[in-house]
């Protein structure tokens, strides 16, 4: 009798497991306790959050599309079942592959990757019109997006003489000239330059 019971439990577990696997759905964000898998900041239920569902059913949350791509870059072996982004407008989940994206330096995102997602190209275009500037990116283009802040960080790791935060600052408000100036400048008056450039804005 005991053996039957054991067999029954095992079968039922397998059955439950089989049923649970079929559907992949994005999980809701819990602002109290969810944090970004990469940068450890709290994930807000806003227009910037993204999510990966792994093959095994584990959900990973990110506070910025850039953080998600950073994770994908670092975990190439992991099998991802599906990925979702929040529509900047409606703040609803969208499938990453079906979304359109806008990249623009003045867009403030939690980790300063400056990319936001929209449900379709029309919505993205109308945002660019309203906003005045911005690059429209399709899903395919997004795969080749440089994640510039990220790129600068890599440079910075290679040559540690350059201040790290520069990249973020320059991404957001600096002109290319200023950027170059700061990167070349590695001496003692480094800080002065930075604060002066800040004051001009």
């Amino acid at each position, binding site marked *: 009798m005991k053996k039957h019971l054991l067999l029954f439990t095992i079968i039922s577990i397998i059955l439950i497991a089989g049923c649970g696997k079929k559907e992949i759905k994005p999980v809701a964000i819990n602002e*109290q*306790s969810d*944090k970004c898998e990469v*940068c*450890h*900041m*709290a994930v807000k239920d806003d227009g910037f959050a993204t999510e990966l569902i792994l093959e095994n059913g584990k959900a990973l949350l990110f506070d910025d599309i850039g953080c998600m791509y950073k994770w994908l870059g670092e975990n190439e072996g992991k099998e991802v079942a599906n990925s979702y982004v929040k529509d900047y407008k409606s703040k609803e989940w969208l499938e990453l592959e079906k979304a359109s994206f806008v990249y623009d330096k003045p867009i403030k995102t939690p980790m*300063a990757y400056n990319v936001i997602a929209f449900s379709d190209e029309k919505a993205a275009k109308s945002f660019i019109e309203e906003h005045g500037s911005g690059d429209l990116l399709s899903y395919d283009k997004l795969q080749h997006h440089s994640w510039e802040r990220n790129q600068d*960080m890599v440079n910075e*790791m290679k040559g*540690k003489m350059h*201040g*790290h*935060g*520069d*990249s*973020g*600052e320059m991404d*957001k*408000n600096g002109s290319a000239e200023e950027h170059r100036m700061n990167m070349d400048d590695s001496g003692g008056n480094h*800080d002065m330059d*930075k*604060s002066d450039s*800040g*004051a001009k*804005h």
Partner: protein
Amino acid sequence: MKTIMNLLLLAGILTIFGGKGAVAEAETSLQALINAVPEGGTLTLKAGTYEEPLILKKPITLIGEKGTFIKACSDQPAITITGKNVILKGVSVIGCRQIPAAVTVNGRNHHLEDLVINSASIGIKLESAVNSSFKNIEISGQGKENGIELWESHQNAFETITIVRVQDGIYLENSHNNTLLGNHIKESRYGIHVMFSDHATIKKNTSTRNVTGAMVMETSGSTIEDNKFYGNNESVNAQGMLLFDVHDSTIRDNMISENRVGLFIENSTGNEITSNKITTNFVGAQIMKTAENAIEDNAFIGNVNHIQAIGGMGGGTNQIRHNYWDSALKLDTDGDGKSNLPYQADPYFLTLIKETPEYQLFFQHPGLILLQKMLKSPAGMVVTDVAPQMEQSTREPLESQPSILTGALSLVMISTSLLIIFYGRKQI
């Protein structure tokens, strides 16, 4: 004739009334008074409540008498400061949710002192503000917005500011060379939140009962010294101080106590983490993907788990030595004050919960002894302090007050149980 006279009279009355109206308006419009103050002049506000948004754009001094309130509920900040050399003192600001910030600051060389800000909006927002100082300010919010926000604002100083119930106490983004001294932040999300901001000086601050005491991210060349981060342990993501992408910074003499995780370090290189007191946290330090940091002369005391660390970054390692570990076996044969027995911590548990966070339920489980044997990490992964400190360098005297209640309880326990045993043995 008579009608002309009447008309003239009427005109006169009108003029008088009209004139009076203008004067009255000038009296209630604080902005007009402010505009009338010459550069370098001072305006003292009488106690009372002023319900209009103010703009200070000239180098003037505005001082409020005790009991001066400025209320704002429009789409304007209660006080907007621009230009340079504005001094604002002794004012209480009450704001609503919809205003962009209670006080916005832009420009240079301003000085704000003795303010009380109570607003559901951002407390003070600095945009491209330089060289300004902020002192003795009390900010309280409703947990949704930041207390003080800095955007592209450099070389500012914040001193003795108290912040309660906001999102992030002091938030710095792209703001360099700022100084935070002796501030006190509690019951918020992140006490101090540094993003993309270099050369910050964070000294003698206290951050307690927040989700995280100090969230230091994307910075280099900063100094974090003599702060107290304690009691940040309520949230499942709580930590005393988090360092993420922090480089070439100094973290020294901080007291990090009673947090969920005391010191959390990831993606960071070249930092000097020395002489910190990391005590009675659930996990003392959690370190991942870091290299070339010096972790020296810290005291790890009374943490449920002292340190969990997963290997270096890019093949690099951290220099971990001369720390005091209260639970370590120590033996000093050559009398140099350092133990000959290395202190080692196997990161198997961190590896386990990183893959499956649900297993955090096994934290400090009595059966982990067996699990550790099974999941033993390779030797290179194990955190090793090659020469732990024999004695704690800075030991504070213990205040032990034998509690009367505890004594009474122990007496009650002893006497009651003795009585029952006596009764049990006697009667048959």
